[in-house]
């Protein structure tokens, strides 16, 4: 059942969206509606358009045709309501910056100069408390573990005080224990904000999320309970294909994964 118009309460509303990159069609006729306190997991093969979809929602990319609305307005206007957690691996590991400084960046954009007020500092500390990082606030970002860095980036997104949390492959490269903590944290956060998470690991999807968006050029929404082997085969194009997807790391396969 496709939505026919922006519902009063929908937070993210995407209608008939098409996007292509270098004349290659990445997303075709996408329709997606996300409601307050929703938790939605975006899965699909590499190159299927997951990250592109996220960047369209964030307003970092613009659709060729169709609509993206966040709280009834443009993504640019709603940027301060969205907290974005990118993959931590993209950061320069020799950049001299403390955990607290990274988290404080979530408070940028509230003033012209970008200088932090007392409330901003308190907000950053609260976010560190919430993610269990208060005791390493002064440590260099480069010296902490992968799981901790991931949580620092979540704390930074929380310091932004948005009501939509968007995470891109947050479980990549973190160990099992960090993962458990991570989902406990997401469960708590979901009580006050929308969680939208990109992953290629379908196993996680079923345990926490209310809905799953399968992205492979087209976007299909399923309730988590409907996640079956047939569905996985359908979205990845069969088990054999799925294995091949994981190993076939062609340059075009990862660019817009």
């Amino acid at each position, binding site marked *: 059942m496709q939505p026919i118009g922006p519902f009063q309460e929908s937070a993210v509303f995407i209608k008939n969206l098409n996007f292509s990159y270098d004349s290659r069609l990445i997303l075709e006729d996408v329709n997606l509606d996300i409601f307050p306190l929703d938790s939605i997991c975006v899965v699909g093969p590499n190159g299927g358009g997951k990250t592109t979809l996220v960047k369209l929602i*964030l307003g*970092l990319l613009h659709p060729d045709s169709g609509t993206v609305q966040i709280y009834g307005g443009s993504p640019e206007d709603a*940027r*301060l309501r*969205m907290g*974005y957690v*990118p993959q931590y691996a993209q*950061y*320069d590991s*020799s*950049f*001299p*910056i*403390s955990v607290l*400084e*990274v988290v*404080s*960046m*979530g408070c*940028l*954009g509230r003033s012209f*100069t*970008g*200088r*932090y007020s007392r409330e901003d500092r308190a907000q950053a500390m609260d976010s560190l408390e919430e993610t269990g990082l208060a005791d390493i606030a002064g440590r*260099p970002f480069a010296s902490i573990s992968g799981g901790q860095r991931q949580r620092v980036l979540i704390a*930074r997104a929380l310091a*932004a005080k948005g009501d939509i949390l968007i995470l891109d492959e947050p479980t990549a490269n973190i160990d099992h224990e960090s993962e458990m903590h991570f989902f406990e944290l997401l469960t708590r956060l979901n009580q006050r904000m929308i969680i939208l998470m990109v992953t290629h690991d379908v196993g996680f999807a079923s345990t926490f999320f209310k809905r799953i968006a399968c992205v492979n050029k087209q976007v299909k929404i399923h309730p988590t309970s409907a996640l079956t082997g047939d569905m996985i085969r359908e979205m990845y194009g069969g088990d054999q294909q799925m294995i091949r997807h994981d190993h076939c790391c062609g340059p075009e396969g990862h660019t817009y994964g």
Partner: protein
Amino acid sequence: MGDFLTVILDPDLPFLRYALLTGIFASIPFGVIGTFVVVRRISYIAGAIAHCVLGGIGLGLYLEKGMGVGWFGPIQGAVLAALLAASVLAVVSRHAKQREDSVIGALWAVGMAVGLLFIAKTPGYVDPMSYLFGNILLVGKNDLLFVLALDVLVFGAVWIFYNKFLAICFDEEFARLRGVSTGWFYLFLLCLTALTIVLLVRVVGIVMVIALLTLPAAVAGNFSRNIFQMMLVAVLFCVFFVVTGLGLSFSLDLPSGPVIILVAAVVYLCTMVFERLRH
């Protein structure tokens, strides 16, 4: 070194005093901007801007000496060319991601070519050597004023917008999502870099700009936990390099630019070895 002190204090020899003061005050923008250049990894962009400066110097010389234009000399030309190059590079990095290095390379060479052609057509003999390799001993009172103005500008801009500059260096995409106009701030950063480079050209010359811009910051990076510390330490190291280099060049009777650079390089090498041994 005793001789050096006597000469510094000699009221009849102002040039060495100017050189020393210029070196010390210029270390502020060198260290501060150098830190951004190192952490944002844009030393190639700095190199391209430096080489474009020769184009501006050539134009300035040609207009001043060839056409008799009084208000446009080498320094105006240098500032103009540096700012122009910075703007072009800011636009290019935004719109032509995959071609950026080609454009940097092209701009680098074209700046030099234009400068050499203008110099060739300028009447009278102009020695490009002092522009290519710099000579801090030629700086005068006006240069010192330029340095002080740049100190105020760089210090003020970075003081006010510290968090935004930090954010565009660490994570430009996130900064943009927080509503920071990253395109404009990047342009602003490149323009400050461009003005700093004009000053560097005066002190160590076009060819050695990158060394004095990046070595103090690279050394400081080994000892610093955050960008503010890195800037502070870089400024101190830069002062040390310039003063030691000047002193050595005076007592050994060698050109100042290369000596300053070698002092910096030796210290950089030592800190790298020290870091290796420590880990």
